[in-house]
């Protein structure tokens, strides 16, 4: 998921960014109200973590701007002010939740998870492809019912491939969307991680008995998942040009 952190305290902003990145989100951080609106326009975040005390344009003004133009973006408000009226005002203006400072990073992450879970309530967080099953909320992957432990990057790579069903994904696309790197970057990181994934997914299946390869190389093009296509009820999954995310049918 794409998350925008808006916090004028640089150190705190960086820690929130690190903590949410460790959760596997794509996270950007800005330090003032004007930059928040500008960045939100550019990245269309799924979630904004918004501090109220901001230079240039305060959090309430940002919230008002969001209400008009970014109805799809969920908002978690952070505040150090203890007045209940202020929190009520923010919730009435469209914020999804408020968190009073000081708070624990674990609580912030859990609240973000809850907001995103509610937000995607109408869309199943489960992606399926043959024997492969991914829960994007719990960040769990199963192959044939066996859990596969993946790193954040491996998870993001597999998520991108699964969102594409059985369609081919080029190395350039993977480099840009999963690693946020330039298409000209001279690196074999995609091939290395595809190999990691292949190994982990094959080990997880049938207790060491050789299984069907789940990721296929398309010569001169890239990679794709083999076998039957994705299914998750009546939900149509689409990978957007700006990165993978869910879309309701």
């Amino acid at each position, binding site marked *: 998921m794409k998350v925008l952190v808006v916090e004028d*305290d640089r*150190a*705190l902003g960086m*820690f*929130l960014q*690190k*903590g949410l990145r*460790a959760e596997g989100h794509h996270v950007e951080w800005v330090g003032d109200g004007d930059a928040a609106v500008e960045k939100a326009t550019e990245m269309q975040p799924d979630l904004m973590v918004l501090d109220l*005390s901001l230079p240039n344009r305060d959090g309430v003004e940002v919230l008002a701007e969001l209400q008009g133009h970014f109805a799809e973006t969920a908002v978690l408000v952070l505040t*150090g*002010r*203890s007045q209940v009226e202020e929190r009520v005002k923010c919730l009435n203006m469209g914020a999804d939740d408020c968190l*009073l*400072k*000081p*708070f*624990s*990073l*674990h609580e*912030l992450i859990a609240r973000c998870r809850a907001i995103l879970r509610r937000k995607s309530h109408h869309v199943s967080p489960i992606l399926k492809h043959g024997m492969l099953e991914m829960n994007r909320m719990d960040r769990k992957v199963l192959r044939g019912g066996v859990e596969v432990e993946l790193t954040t990057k491996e998870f993001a790579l597999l998520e991108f491939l699964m969102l594409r069903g059985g369609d081919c994904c080029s190395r350039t696309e993977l480099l840009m969307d999963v690693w946020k790197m330039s298409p000209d970057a001279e690196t074999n990181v995609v091939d290395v991680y595809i190999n990691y994934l292949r190994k982990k997914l094959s080990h997880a299946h049938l207790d060491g008995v050789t299984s069907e390869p789940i990721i296929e190389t398309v010569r001169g093009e890239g990679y794709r998942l083999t076998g039957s296509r994705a299914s998750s009820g009546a939900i149509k999954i689409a990978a957007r040009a700006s990165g993978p995310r869910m879309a309701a049918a």
Partner: protein
Amino acid sequence: MQRRAEMLKRIEKQLHDLCQPLTTLQCRLELGAMCADEASLLEAVQGGLQETEKLFAGIGAMRESLQREMSRMHESEDVEE
């Protein structure tokens, strides 16, 4: 009455000023514990000490205004006697 309102406003601001470094400290330490490698833990401790300095300054300001209010209270008690 007006002085009381001013005092409450000041306490509110001082509490707000304590919240920021305390949140940063909490998040720094939790992130350090999550990473758990030596470099992350060292960074968390060093950064944590910077945040405690800010907390000390905040507590100093609160103590100062408390002492000011207490001496004002004693003065008014003396006048009443």
